[in-house]
């Protein structure tokens, strides 16, 4: 099956000599919810910039549903909706005008653009603000405006570069829900984010970019399977003098009402609860100490960095 987006051997060297991409290749299948992760300066935004034609590639090939962005520029562009990291609309224009104009740039007749604009502004809770100049919107509203603008021509691929940066938790979750809905309706979504919880919650596939190279490209499930150890924090009802002893598991006291327990891959949590039950410890709540993906991400990126350093030495 033709991938929704295919990147082959993409290189980018900026005019100042900075090597941003060192030949990355990846395929995103139609209907996927794909995360692109990486530390700051890894090359995520450069990749999106090249896909959206705001950055000129040095070498490589990009196809969108089989259409090369160089040779079939117009057809490829029609399939893409881009939500950039920074606000890039005129702050003096009204919300509805911004979305309508974007429809116009994609050749949508005004009546059709108006229908589409109303649909997405309503879905994103901005219809009541349609006559408000963009500069008067809150940060979260501006982000939603960029999503509505990117969707007005109904692209089959939506690319979001850190869409929830600086957005409060409630709004972030409502945006997740919206993205899940349009993904379920068939839109392929590619997302870069610093919130690893976001990637874990939304995405089925993940690529990790570091220093211009892809260090991991797999399914979220496969990636999470690589976890060798998870640490859980248990809150208990009674005062603890010391961390409860559970044979085969390392435990550490945090304070008199909580302790942490390390669970190795393959170990069962049932044994932990049995041991605690026998010791008369009542667990009232339990949570993962760290985001699981975050642990993997840090280990992968840091191993890449240390490898680079070792080679440099």
């Amino acid at each position: 099956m033709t991938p929704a987006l295919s990147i082959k051997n993409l290189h980018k060297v900026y005019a100042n000599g900075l090597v941003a991409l060192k030949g990355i290749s990846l395929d995103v299948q139609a209907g996927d919810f794909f995360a692109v992760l990486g530390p700051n300066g890894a090359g995520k935004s450069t990749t999106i910039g090249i896909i959206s034609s705001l950055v000129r590639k040095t070498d490589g090939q990009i196809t969108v549903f089989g259409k090369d962005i160089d040779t079939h520029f117009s057809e490829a562009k029609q399939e893409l909706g881009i939500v950039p990291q920074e606000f890039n609309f005129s702050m003096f224009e009204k919300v509805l005008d911004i979305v309508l104009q974007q429809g116009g740039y994609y050749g949508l007749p005004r009546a059709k653009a108006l229908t589409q604009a109303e649909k997405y502004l309503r879905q994103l809770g901005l219809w009541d603000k349609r006559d408000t100049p963009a500069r008067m919107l809150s940060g979260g509203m501006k982000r939603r405006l960029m999503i509505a603008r990117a969707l007005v021509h109904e692209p089959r691929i939506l690319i979001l570069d850190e869409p929830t940066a600086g957005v409060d938790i409630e709004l972030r979750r409502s945006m997740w829900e919206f993205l899940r809905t349009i993904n379920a309706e068939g839109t392929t979504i590619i997302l870069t984010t610093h919130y690893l919880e976001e990637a874990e919650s939304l995405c089925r596939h993940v690529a990790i970019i570091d220093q211009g190279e892809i260090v991991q490209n797999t399914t979220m499930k496969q990636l999470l399977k690589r976890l060798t150890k998870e640490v859980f924090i248990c809150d208990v009802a009674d005062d603890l003098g010391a961390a409860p002893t559970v044979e085969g598991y390392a435990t550490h006291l945090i304070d008199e009402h909580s302790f942490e327990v390390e669970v190795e891959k393959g170990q069962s949590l049932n044994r932990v609860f049995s041991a605690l039950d026998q010791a008369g410890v009542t667990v009232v709540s339990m949570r993962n100490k760290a985001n699981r993906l975050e642990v993997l991400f840090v280990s992968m990126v840091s191993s890449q960095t240390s490898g680079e350093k070792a080679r440099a030495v």
Partner: protein
Amino acid sequence: MQFNQQMVALATIVRKEIKRFTRIWVQTLLPPVITMSLYFVIFGKLIGDRIGTMDGIAYMQFVVPGLIMMAVLTNSYSNVSSSFFSAKFQRSIEEILVSPTPNVIILLGYCAGGMARGLCVGVLVTLLALFFTDIHVHNWWVTVSVVIMTSLFFALAGFINAIYANTFDDISIVPTFILTPLTYLGGVFYSVSLLPDFWRWVSQLNPILHMVGAFRYGMLGTSEGNIWLAFLGLFLATLALFFISLHLLKHGKRLRA
């Protein structure tokens, strides 16, 4: 992108540009009208009455075509340079650059916006001139085609300025240090026949002199130079700026990293 879609994109850019300069009419339409009123009163009426005639024409009638052209070319230029640079500065230009809109449509859209403002101010100044003198058009075809081509020429020049500009200062340098001197020395207020031979020859190198001369011919029927040569020069220069602008857009000069 199909032709009808390209026309939708073009109409969108033009509508946006017209909306922009009419929304801020106090900054865009009113100042040239006030400035030209002062020119009409001071140069045309107060000083003009003492000058009498220029090339056999009443001075007020002589300056009217020049002042109309001056308003048209400065406004066409500044509309495109400020609008396109603002879009670059705010990064809203990316809205168009990520879309399938072809470069030629982007260029035509911005230039049409600049021409709309230039011609709009031109019409306002013409109406204003009617308070001071009678206006007769000797040759409508020459008058209209010269004003349109001049407007396009300066819209394109403003576009190139905006592409190269990095700061707002950069878009005021050309109008201040190049455009204004060339305009004032371009036969708007005087006939080059008054100049010594050497300066008359130097003046021939000023393209605005020929544009004003051709326009004055269209309105008054008299010209200091060869009208058809001016026409051809203006056409070729406009064509050259058009392809330079298109080339810069195609290569993403200061637009794409």
